[in-house]
């Protein structure tokens, strides 16, 4: 069966520090991969999605970037965090372009 792992689960970072969130999927090949952000009490904002290795589409201009170095690995990064980067970051995968999404457990980031 397919599983998705996302880490770290929680982190507190100072403003200006770097960020790296990692997500891996097991049990499937060539998944579509997504990074969403959810501010407290708000909806899900699509940040990046990828249909293959090295193929990243950015939805919102910001100080975040994403990379897909391997088929089932998706990384969200920042060189310098802003206060506004605080939120709940969710990685997700799907097998078809319009298929259901399977979410990871999420990473809760607080920037102080």
């Amino acid at each position: 069966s397919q599983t998705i792992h996302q880490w770290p689960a929680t982190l507190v970072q100072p403003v200006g520090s770097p960020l790296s969130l990692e997500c891996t999927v097991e049990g499937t090949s060539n998944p579509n991969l997504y990074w969403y952000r959810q501010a407290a009490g708000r909806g899900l904002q699509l940040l990046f999605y990828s249909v293959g290795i090295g193929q990243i589409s950015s939805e919102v201009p910001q100080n975040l970037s994403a990379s897909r170095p391997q088929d089932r690995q998706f990384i969200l990064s920042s060189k310098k965090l802003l206060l506004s980067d605080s939120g709940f970051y969710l990685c997700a995968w799907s097998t078809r372009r319009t298929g259901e999404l399977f979410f990871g457990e999420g990473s809760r980031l607080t920037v102080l």
Partner: protein
Amino acid sequence: GQQVMQIPQYQHVQEGEDFTTYCNSSTTLSNIQWYKQRPGGHPVFLIQLVKSGEVKKQKRLTFQFGEAKKNSSLHITATQTTDVGTYFCAVSSSNTGKLIFGQGTTLQVKP
């Protein structure tokens, strides 16, 4: 780009009362998905609707896709405290297939 409006934003009900959340789009949708997110958790897929006028049921949950495929609803009959959470609809971009979420409806159930 593709957008979907979801209402209401919040709903407080007494246990046993019914609950409905609505999603509306200005454009015709190819399909619509519904997700539930428990407090502190991650969204979990509930269902996908594809056909015009489609109605699907999951126990006390009834999902409906409008005839024009521009709106959808999720109705919960006789809510229970386990129904607490935020319910999202999600639609696919016609060009890319990426999934865009509505703002969600947060349901609170008073025991």
